[in-house]
């Protein structure tokens, strides 16, 4: 049986603060009746403003939930309130399973049993297979054409001089890369296009903008060259295809050998781009010592998957995407969920962490960041940094320096985070109370 949730996990599940507050307000015994819990089901009835109480059923193992109220919030305040009551220990094991919960559970099971049949790829005819192959070939041709155009454009820019870069020029090219289905490149160009063009006068014109732009142009040129190479090893080819924007089917990833472990959730970062919200969740294998990156996507404004709660743990099989270094993964079978996970981490010295980052870059020069844990103490002067016992240091990036200093009190600690060109972006720290996400 899984642990009882902590209230923080319920908070993390709330779609917004208003729902959370409403849920807390309802997390008192008065309006509730017919409550009960038998893992994984939690159920109850909440008397609202209407004459009929709202029926609530929750499967805490996933979690998934259902409420008979008309709220468009998901989960609604009734679900959150019932979870708070349970998380606070106010609902014990037992109780008579409500009709609503029983029906909901039965429906889900029925759907789940049929699911494998639905999920199994339908048998395709030869004609369909041929059409699919033709589409794939057509896309590769488009990509080849798009990347050739990209490379010519880059050479033109360098020939004419970056000081003559026209604002918005990269935006136009990005649009053409979308047409050519080189979506990964289009995204990088849009990022670059958003950076303000620096001053272009003087002997060392442009400053950081010039450096960053030239570096990115170099990496895009490298990607374009790599695409034309037919002699790349499989791993590197997969990496190149990944950065260009080719996707790998979920079934293909899930068919790869699993890596079983209890994975601690050591970092989470949400971002919005165009119409898509992305959640990046970093996991650390408490036995294997491996890191994994799980990505969730949703239409902008819609809630993102909240099954991986920072600071918690999950015993599960992970399946890694092809390409190196193997970081991105899908969560396969989940065996257990832990509200808190206690583990030791072999945190590195700064030099070891940087050496690993460099090895990762050798495998994937386009890699944005690399997860690691560094044992060190935070400092503020002359710039925020993390220094290890040997005195080696790395600059702290992002806005987590203050929370890190507050949590560690200046003492050495194992700090999880992402090494990236700017420095180290801390995401979580191991304290005496366990893992605390920054």
């Amino acid at each position, binding site marked *: 049986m899984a642990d009882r949730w902590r209230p923080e996990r319920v908070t993390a599940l709330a779609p917004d603060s208003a729902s959370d*507050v409403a849920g807390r307000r309802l997390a008192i015994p008065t309006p509730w009746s017919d409550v009960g819990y038998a893992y994984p089901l939690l159920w109850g009835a909440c008397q609202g403003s209407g004459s009929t109480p709202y029926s609530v059923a929750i499967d805490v193992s996933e979690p998934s939930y259902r409420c008979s109220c008309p709220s468009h919030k998901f989960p609604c305040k009734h679900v959150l309130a019932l979870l708070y009551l349970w998380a606070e220990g106010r609902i014990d094991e037992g109780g008579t399973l409500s009709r609503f919960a029983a029906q909901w559970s039965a429906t889900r099971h029925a759907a789940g049993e049929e699911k494998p049949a639905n999920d199994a790829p339908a048998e395709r005819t030869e004609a369909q297979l041929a059409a699919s192959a033709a589409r794939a070939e057509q896309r590769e041709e488009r990509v080849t054409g798009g990347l050739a155009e990209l490379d010519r454009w880059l050479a033109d820019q360098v020939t004419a*001089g970056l000081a003559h870069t026209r604002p918005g020029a990269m935006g136009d090219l990005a649009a053409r890369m979308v047409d050519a289905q080189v979506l990964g490149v289009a995204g990088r160009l849009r990022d670059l296009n958003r950076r303000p063009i620096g001053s272009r006068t003087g002997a060392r014109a442009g400053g950081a903008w010039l450096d960053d732009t030239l570096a990115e142009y170099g990496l895009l040129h490298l990607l374009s060259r790599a695409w034309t190479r037919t002699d790349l090893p499989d791993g590197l080819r997969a990496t190149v295809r990944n950065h260009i924007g080719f996707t790998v089917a979920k079934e293909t990833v899930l068919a790869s050998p699993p890596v079983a472990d209890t994975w601690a959730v050591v970092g989470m970062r949400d971002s919005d781009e165009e119409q898509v919200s992305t959640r990046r969740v970093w996991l650390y294998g408490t036995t294997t010592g491996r890191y994994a990156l799980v990505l969730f996507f949703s239409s902008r404004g819609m809630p993102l998957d909240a099954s991986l709660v920072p600071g918690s743990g999950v015993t599960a099989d992970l399946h890694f995407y092809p390409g190196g270094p193997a970081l991105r993964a899908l969560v396969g079978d989940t065996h257990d969920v832990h509200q808190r996970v206690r583990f030791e981490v072999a945190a590195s010295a700064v030099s070891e962490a940087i050496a690993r980052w460099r090895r990762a870059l050798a495998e994937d020069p386009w890699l944005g960041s690399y997860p690691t844990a560094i044992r060190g103490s935070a400092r503020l*002067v002359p710039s925020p940094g993390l220094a290890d016992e040997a005195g080696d240091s790395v600059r702290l990036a992002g806005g987590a320096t203050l929370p890190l*200093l507050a949590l560690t009190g200046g003492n050495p600690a194992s700090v999880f985070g992402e090494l990236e060109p700017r420095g180290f972006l801390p995401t979580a720290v191991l304290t005496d109370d366990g893992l605390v996400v920054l």
Partner: protein
Amino acid sequence: MTFDALASIAAVGTGQRSSLPPVGALAAYLPGPDEADPQALAYALLDSAAALAVVRRGTPAAAPGEPVPPAPDDPFPEPPVHVISLLGPLLADDAGAIRLASDRAYVLAEALRLVAQAGMRLPHRLLGVALARRDLRLFVQPVLGARGEWLLAQLQGAGLDGATTAAADPGDPELWDTGTSEERLAWFRHARAVDPESARAAAVAVWKESPAAFRTELMSAIAESVTPADEAFCEQGLDDRAEGVRVGAADALSRLPDSAYVARMAARAQEAIAVGELEPGAVHRLLKRTIRTLQVTPYEPDETAVRDGLGRKLSSKERLTRLVAAVPPAMWPSLVGATAAELVTLHQDEPRWELVGGIGTATLRNADATTANLLVAAGVMDVRLVPLLSTAATLALIAQAPTTLLGTVLDGVATPWPQEVATAVGQQLVGTNGHQVRPEVWTMFARSVPLRLAGGWAQRLRGLGQPDGRTVRNMLRDATSVLTVRALFADELRPFLPETSWQDTQPGGQL
């Protein structure tokens, strides 16, 4: 070739060059130039840029420096987990639970004060965001705990706190000699509270060389804390060349019931105002009742009256108002045989003279709560009197006040409101008047309801559902949110608060 050198070439362009400087050891990994390609130089530069960019990316910046001293232990406990999870979004100014930023700041300040009263401190993980809220530093400081104090010291030592220089200590005597006008006034007010005589002596010492605006401010400060020992100085102020000083001096002197100034003004008032009796009609004779009337003779000022602020350029009406404002309300029975509250209700023949404004001012100057309550009972609607009123009189004023004036009346009621006031206002809001009151009344209500009643009112407002009118719906939603969150904090922290604190303190009163 370094990356910087390569960037300099790229900035200018390879179009005018025939070759690139060697890139050193990396050259072994780079493809050779394609002589046939007219843009071979550009591609060679991009190849080099790619290689050097990877090297550059693999070398994150170091941060050499001195370690910080370790933090001391924290002896105080953290608040309950629910309080922490509510404080987090509020400190981060997350608009989810409470829409208006000012409401969030108010509720947060109240919550932080409760946490401090409960003898608790912020959890370490919230210290960073708490210290970033410089607008709430006053409320954050008492709940920082040892770790927070240590963190703040580190930030300040590193020059990273970002807070503006702390306000000068108003008790610092240096300020009087070297501070700005504002700092000098702050010192003067502080000194008046501690040692009014020395403060006045300091003012006298600089009086002649001080500009009129500063003298006016000083006299105004003296009026706020005037004592009989200031009388002579204020009398001199009546002869000051600056009008502001003269007005301030008259104001100060009229707050001293035994001053010569008040005696002079009382004598003039006695000349100008009298209470007489009308010849009774048949009905009144039968009822054996007399009709008292107010008789006002416009006061014609002489030279001493002009000095006392009853100038010839004033209208008769304004002169009368100033005259009445200088007479302590308690003095009227001995002057004219009627109380101040009676004066405003007496029958008058035409033209009628308005005494309400002057009597209201005098009531305020003398902090005369008895007269304030009697005036309201007599039907006087003077919102300036609200701070002096009893709860019953406040309720009467609320009942009399038109809905558009309700906010102005409530502005003068100390927070948290007495339970009866909260109930009366709440009933207006949930009743038919809810859509007529100004939006700020909803805000004031949500913030000023005593904490122990917040939960009940939140529930009552929720029970209203979705009333007609977008503005009312918004106001209702905002007020409900504020009351709900206040109640959540109160419920969670109540077990840790002393009962007296729970009943009597005014956690949000100073905002």
